């Protein structure tokens, strides 16, 4: 265990005290409940934003289960990601209603505006675009989800406004950080 901890890259959430504390707390609270692995992974994904390889190894050590089991579960579910996302996520609903309702056109538009394909993050680490399953807002198709906010009835010419909001915010945060 100790040896493993020494090999963690400095950029990993495990190497950052605040995040490490969150991870430990999630593990402590859930490792003994039946079926706890799913609960832990969901919490990690939600609160840390992704589940790195080192985090998976850490979970397996703490829960005393093989790393391959943890890895098998992480890779099975599409919600779990092993690399960090951008500061903002723009998800395009690819459910039936939205497909019929014009989401494919919006994706073209996003590719043009941001210069990245679905599944990728802009080089400045600001925005990740993703395709997702029906988010249950079909009556408002086509639907785009920006971070947690659901935007319905998005027409292609309204779409840049939605994007602009995240882009501007992104600029502000990076300016603040600078």
């Amino acid at each position, binding site marked *: 265990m100790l040896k493993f901890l020494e090999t963690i890259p400095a950029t990993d959430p495990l190497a950052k005290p605040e995040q490490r504390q969150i991870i430990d707390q999630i593990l402590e609270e859930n490792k003994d409940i*039946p*079926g*706890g*692995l*799913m*609960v832990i*992974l*969901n919490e990690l*994904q939600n609160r840390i934003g992704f589940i790195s390889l080192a985090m998976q190894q850490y979970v397996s050590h703490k829960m005393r289960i093989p790393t391959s089991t943890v890895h*098998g*579960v992480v890779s*099975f*579910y*599409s*919600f*779990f990601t092993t690399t960090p996302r951008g500061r903002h996520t723009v998800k395009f609903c*690819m*459910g*039936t*209603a*939205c*497909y*019929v*309702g*014009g989401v*494919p*056109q919006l994706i*073209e*538009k996003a*590719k*043009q505006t941001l210069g990245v394909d679905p599944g990728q993050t802009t080089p400045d680490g600001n925005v990740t675009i993703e395709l*997702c*399953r*029906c*988010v*249950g*807002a*079909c*009556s*408002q*198709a086509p639907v785009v989800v920006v971070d*947690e906010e659901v935007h*319905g009835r998005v*027409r*292609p*010419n*309204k779409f*840049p*406004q939605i994007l*602009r*909001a995240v882009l*501007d915010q992104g600029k502000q945060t990076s300016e603040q950080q600078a």
Partner: protein
Amino acid sequence: MAFYRSHILVSVDPKCLQKGSHEILDSLQDELVSHGLVDEVQVLETSRIGDPDVDGPDLIVYPEGVHYANLSVDDIPFLVEEHFLKGRIVEKLKAREHVLSDEELGAPKSKEVRVVLRNCGKIDPNNIEEYIAEDGYMALAKVLTEMSPETVIDTVMQSGLRGRGGAGFLAAQKWKFARQSPGEIKYVGCNADEGDPGAFMNRRVLESDPHSVIEGMAIAAYAIGAEHGYIYCRAEYPLAVKTLNIAIMQAREFGFLGKNIMGTGFTFDLEVRMGAGAFVCGEETALMSSIEGKRGEPRPRPPFPAVKGLWQKPTNINNVETYANVPQIVLKGPEWFAAMGTEKSKGTKTFAMAGDVKNTGLIEVPFGITLREIVYDIGGGIKDDKDLKAVQTGGPMGGFIPIQYLDLPVDYEALASVGSIMGSGGMIIIDEDTCMVDMARFFMEFTQDESCGKCVPCRVGTRRLLEILTRICEGKGQEGDIEQLENLSQEIRADSLCGLGQGAPNPVLTSIKYFREEYEAHIREKRCPAKVCRALISYEILEGPCTGCTVCARNCPVNAISGERRQTHLIDPDICICCGICMQVCNFNAIRIN
């Protein structure tokens, strides 16, 4: 002093400015100048206009007092021409009133009957007292104090309640099996995975009336002899999870969950577990694996969950809607319930109507209603008064139902008889502008992606189907493709372990069965009759209607459109990727597909 016949007040609060009020102002000036209206119409800036819920940028036109909202610069040329030159109000740009409660669930329409949705939008889901005021937890009280587990099962049996999650198995039959299975520890599980795209009935119940599900589960737990339950909710529904957790806490505080409920000695508690984006976890055996913290792969049945379920213990899994019906059945009696519906399908069913119908949203109707009544009487018909082509039910494992079956009474058996399924209640209304081959391809992309990969026919077969369908859509179809699709479909159906593989071919088979000529047009004539498949169409700008407003050119993602302001624009077919955006944004119907 100049006299203006109209005034435009443009909102320039910070939020609208961020979304481009300045561009709107510029464009308004531009357009007014070019139409020679500057001396008649005055443009003024103002801070926020009235309703904070309306999306900006917005503006109000006086003297009419018309409020246009959610505008973009691209709307301005059209708006100016229509409103100020021709004097017509532009309905599609008018501010929509944000009715907070409901875009997806309006007041019941004439042919609707609300049982499961009765409290939705009426009570505050985060306040258990409002549920109690609607006779909430009365059914549980009645069950615990007056009925034996066997009478509960008999009552539900008499009502004829069938599972609302897909297969339509009699709920009480499953409860009976679980009750009879030997074992001290048993579980009840609620399937809130609702993975079918286009379906959101369960989400609505969980978010608006969570206690009806909790109460139904508690009654089922009493009937089968379980003390613990799980609600498995998909990760895409964070609000439902939150609402459920609040509801469970309040139910515990009020003594409807926990030890010795209502002083009767009955113990039952409940927790919510979240999925993580795998569609196959809606299948009940996969769902149980996932709750156990494993990969959500289905396993063969038998043994059925009622015998060996969660952690090898007898388990009863029902859908959200199935449970939500139970308290009403107990309170109003099985006869009341059985009086609704058809001979074999009793009660009501919720459907999520989406697609090309005028009134999209949630509906609840008694079984036996016809598709025609649903689409035309409740749905208000097809958008833009186009023609209906098909109704798709049952999600990706369901099928297309063509218009010749519009008078089919909707129940489990009738839908199956035309090759589709009831599924959980997604209903996509498809108009004449939809390509059936493309739709079949879309569903196959979904199932192919969601196959868990355990069975070779499902994993490899769906990929093969997708390849062939994609080829046909790209204009590279060959003679024999249709037959190959049919043969492969039969194999996948016969040799797959779970319902995903078994149902995956349904969209392909029904689209071939009812729309074979569309496949043939793609394959033989390299033509897409609905003008959807990108490789088989081209876009053209018509000289007459094009006003040169530049909207299309500015919105084309690949800059395929050229043209001067106020002159007819032109699409370069070598650059155009046929995305169709220009057609969507053009306000003058100047773009045609060939």
